[in-house]
């Protein structure tokens, strides 16, 4: 097998030196996701600032694919617009579900294109998606909170 098709150098680099790792303050929402088939876990925090993702921090336990994927994710979303992050999320999920067939859009996915090879290994797709699912969940909750607190403000104003 071409182990290198899965373990691209970019992935190994992110695995050995993960970006933005560790849990940080301040944050709006913290989520905890697990991969029930293998026991891998991630705790992930999101801080939003209006429509911008101002920080994503995480602490995780998992294989090289899941660790590198979390690192790549944070590079793609921190400091960017939420919508841009969600677009990247959609692209990444589609890539991972493509069974090696999709040609990833490097404009949108940047380093995450390296995961194209992982999509050929169904058992490892969940590893790559763990942090992305956690981020989407946390972001949705954070947006809900901010809408609710805006609602509270409106109430007070009226």
């Amino acid at each position: 097998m071409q182990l290198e098709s899965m373990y691209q150098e970019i992935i190994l680099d992110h695995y050995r030196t993960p970006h933005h790792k560790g849990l940080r303050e301040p944050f709006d929402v913290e989520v905890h996701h697990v991969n029930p088939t293998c026991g891998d876990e991630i705790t992930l925090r999101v801080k939003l600032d209006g429509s911008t993702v101002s920080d994503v921090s995480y602490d995780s336990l998992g294989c090289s694919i899941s660790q590198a994927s979390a690192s790549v994710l944070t590079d793609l979303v921190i400091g960017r617009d939420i919508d841009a992050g969600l677009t990247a999320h959609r692209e990444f999920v589609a890539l991972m579900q493509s069974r090696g067939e999709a040609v990833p859009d490097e404009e949108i996915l940047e380093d995450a294109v390296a995961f194209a090879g992982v999509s050929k290994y169904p058992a490892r797709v969940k590893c790559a998606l763990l942090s992305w699912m956690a981020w989407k969940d946390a972001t949705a909750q954070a947006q809900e909170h901010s809408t609710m607190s805006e609602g509270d403000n409106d109430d007070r104003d009226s």
Partner: protein
Amino acid sequence: MSQPPVATHAAYDVELLRKDFPILERRVHDNQPLVYLDSANTSQKPRQVLDVLTEFYEQHNSNIHRATHALGEEATEAYESARMKVASFIGAPSADEIIFTKNSSEALNLIANVLAWGERGLKPGDEVVITEMEHHSNIVPWQLLCERTGATLRWFGVTDDGRLDLSDIDTLINEHTKVVSFVHVSNVLGTLNPVALIAARAHAVGAIVVLDASQSVPQLPVDVQELGIDVVAFTGHKMCGPTGIGMLWGRRELLEALPPFLGGGEMIETVTMERSTYAGLPHKYEAGTPPIAEAVALGAAVDYLTGIGMDAVAAHEREITAYALSALTEVPELRVLGPTEPVDRGGAISFTLGSVHPHDVAQILDGHGIAVRAGHHCGRPIHRRFGVAASTRASFYLYTTTSEIDALVAGLDKAKRFFG
């Protein structure tokens, strides 16, 4: 139907046995020979079993117990004869006490479910005792039983060297204990548990003893009467048989006293719109059309193992395990979860390799044609006990060779260098 061919091997010749398993000729990933070290997950199947499976569908296929024609009689005869083979294989006093299920999990769920109600049903204040080294299928059904009945779940801990901590056996198993359910040979640690000792204490307080023998029946001579237990669960696919067929054995007086599990065809005596009465053993616990071909092929698997001799299978397992333990404990940064000496131990060896994640270890090994399992192997609590989320597991069977262990050790070295 014709008798399935029985393998006979005077002296243990692993290379000769391997020829019975077509899949062991497979090449994977760039034409590398398959090194299959995942038999605790599922065993491979010999030609003798595959032929019987095919022959059943080609020559004898019919439903059983209800077809009054030639094929129906042949199929019924083949199915019931498989039951007799299984009974004799595990030393059950009567074939009627063998219940075919779909796997070990269903067998364990069966017994846990029928203890939820009826005369022997559990009540608040009653206790169920399991162990920290159980497979999820011997944990969750008992959690569900306790939730349903208000009974309390308790468990034995595990020592650092992977043995059951029996120091509190006399308080843990007490006058409130109604069921003690534990694994014969752990699928994670490999530990062989002292069945007779635990069963004696359980029986002294009047508790039912349930044994999960999923890993032991394929590997060791098992005699349920000698072990002194009340119920045993095991599965066909780990003992050279097909998937989709498991077994529960229970003492007749116990199974007769317990209520039915699944309702449906074949398990009844009479049915009115108001109520039903139930068939006797074993049909009471076999609602619906069972896995007929699978049972027949399982019978062939029993013949196959009997032909080799379970003493010989167990001796080979011991030899391979000793060889593997000694080779693996030499690998730098490798930590075995469970006993590191081949004493009272089955052939599953779970380990961690430095900081390399088990998924990555398994992926690199797979890249070299070596099949192992990575993850928690349906034993999350026991992994937590040893402070890890997951491990890599190599497991062996009657066809495993020492050169396959050597390939594993070489593969681990490659994995470490890849991620180093």
